[in-house]
């Protein structure tokens, strides 16, 4: 089976500082990968670089999506190919409603006009899955949303936009116990509907309970230090990162 995402020897950073040192990562269609690592390891950086953030410059290696080199592509082009990033810190945009924003994004991604009525119906249905009050659709995007509400709004976007690869950057952090469950249900629903692939960045396995994890990657100081199956994630939660980081010594 051809791979959905293939990252080879990816080195990236900001001016004068390399943050990712030769990362290899391959995600097949429909797979779920977990990315863990201590604070500051470079997980969010990797997610942003895959999405095409202009904040980071790639100085080595390549990113292929469905066999095509997207290393130098802008974020909007990658989004159109089917890549999605759920942000660790979603931004607030005043004066643009969640509904209007999503309709605009959907039209950009599909290149097709979306009827307002159909859009509202779909949005409402997706909001129900996430237990979101439908009034939020008309509120300014993320403005005044609580931390947990912002995360839910990210998963709402995932459900509406239906990408082929979704990177979820700590979508579970800041969520209460029940909210983790609803968000997991939302992610499950996304997988069920689209058969899409996931890269889940997390410090917590609870969000993974409902998902079948194919592979776990441990990142530290911008390098992959360990890889394994679903069990590796559980192991990390139990014993911490110490043994992987100092494993070589």
């Amino acid at each position, binding site marked *: 089976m051809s791979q959905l995402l293939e990252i080879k020897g990816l080195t990236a950073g900001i001016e004068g500082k390399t943050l990712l040192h030769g990362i290899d990562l391959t995600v097949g269609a429909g797979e779920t990968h977990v990315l863990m690592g201590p604070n500051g390891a470079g997980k969010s950086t990797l997610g*942003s670089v895959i*999405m*095409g*953030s*202009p*904040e980071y410059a790639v100085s080595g290696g390549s990113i292929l999506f469905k066999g095509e080199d997207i290393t130098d592509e*802008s*974020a*909007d082009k*990658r*989004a*159109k190919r089917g890549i*999605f*990033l759920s*942000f660790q810190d*979603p*931004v607030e*945009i*005043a*004066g*643009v409603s969640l509904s209007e*924003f999503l309709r*605009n*994004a959907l039209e*950009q*991604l599909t290149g097709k006009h979306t009827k307002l009525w159909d859009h509202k119906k779909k949005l409402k249905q997706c909001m129900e899955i996430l237990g979101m009050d439908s009034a939020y659709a008309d509120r*300014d995007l993320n403005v005044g949303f609580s931390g947990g509400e912002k995360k839910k709004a990210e998963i709402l*976007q995932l459900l509406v*936009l239906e990408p082929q690869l979704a990177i979820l950057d700590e979508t579970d952090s800041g969520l209460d116990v029940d909210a983790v469950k609803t968000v997991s249900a939302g992610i499950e629903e996304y997988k069920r509907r689209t058969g899409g692939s996931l890269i889940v960045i997390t410090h917590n396995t609870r969000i993974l309970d409902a998902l079948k994890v194919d592979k776990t990657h441990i990142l530290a100081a911008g390098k992959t230090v360990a890889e394994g199956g679903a069990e590796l994630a559980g192991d990390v939660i139990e014993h911490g990162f110490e043994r992987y980081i100092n494993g070589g010594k």
Partner: protein
Amino acid sequence: MSEEKTKVADIDRSLYDFRYEEDERDFLGSGITADIIGALSDEKGDTDWMREFRLRSLEIYRRMPMVNWGPSIEGLDVDNIVTYIRTKSRMNSDWNDVPADIKDTFEKLGIPQAERESLAGVGAQYDSELVYHNVRKEVAESGVVYTDLESAMHDERYAELIRSHFMKLVPPTDHKFAALHGAVWSGGSFVYVPAGVKTEIPLQSYFRLNARGAGQFEHTLIILEENSSLHFIEGCSAPKYYEAGLHAGCVELYVGRNASLRYSTIENWSKNMYNLNTKRALVEEGGKIEWVSGSFGSHVSYLYPMSILNGRGARAEFTGITFAGEGQELDTGAKIVHNAPDTSSYINTKSISKDGGISTFRSAVTVNEKAVGSKSSVSCESLMLDSISRSDTIPVMDIRTDKADVGHEAKIGRISDDTVFYLMSRGLSEEDAKAMIVRGFADNVSKELPLEYAVEMNNLIGLEMKGSIG
């Protein structure tokens, strides 16, 4: 790459910047002399008082110093600006009678559409004369007068009313361009709303300039009697041409006791225009003036609508947006004078600057001794789209009573890279992402506009944002 960009920008601008060849014979000649003013009076059939008023204004104009405290107007050669151009047509009340080229111009601007979409009437000024004018029957039947100011002046029913109000709020001595206006004014609207009449549908007029080097000096006079209400919309869009263009219009609004007037404008001048417009409202006891103002285009603008709150409990609200792009210096704001107890004012403005554009916001709030218990709140937000653009805020407050509640807030920001990346990660191009952020920023203004105007403003923002990606 950059060549392609320029092309795109030119094509887009052509949507709004278009003009037709004017008939050279229609020019009255350049420069402003007593003879020119006399000829203008002859042409208009001015009454004696107007004849004198024009000449007196010309005297004042000559005596007064050039405006020198704001953006430079050195490039403006007033004497060389043709002050008056006749269009080939006279008044029309039927769309079918409007000459084809004029009609085409309006069609491009969407006027007949707006007309169809249940606006009460259109009084559109082509060059200096009103060529199309039509007020819906029901509005006329309620006693509301909506006509062009020139013919109203010759109508004995309104002559005295106009004489006692014309340039009483903005006298020719106010500043040099008010004096110029008094001398050469031409065209514009007259609206009279009788006591107790609440006008449900907005009245609309659409102005634009055509002839090269033409000045436009239209005068809007609106009088609302006690307990009446009105929404008046004025839209402007000018074609692009090569000589310096000047707009020195004047708007005088009289809001009677407990009356309520909303005055909305979207101005979109071509990028070589000097827009030196004077707008003023006088509000009596319990009355209310609401300004909604969008300033786009022009090379230089000076625009500070003033509200004089003259009776107890009178209120003023000003919501405005200014967009300054390359080569533009837009100096805008609002002035409020609290002259009576318990008056209140609320100013909320947004300004956007881009590609080296300069946008300056000035507010002047005066609270006089008598205005005890008055409230004023001024808030101004600026958004700079790049590091070469500028945005300044100059708030002036003159508070002469300690029994007033006055607040001021200013915020200056930039579009954050994080926000642009966020939107791009959802499939929006960089340009669309920025345009969406700017539209969001302008949202509180577009919300105040009737739908079709909000759409036009959003389109204008889209046009202004085009080609901004380096």
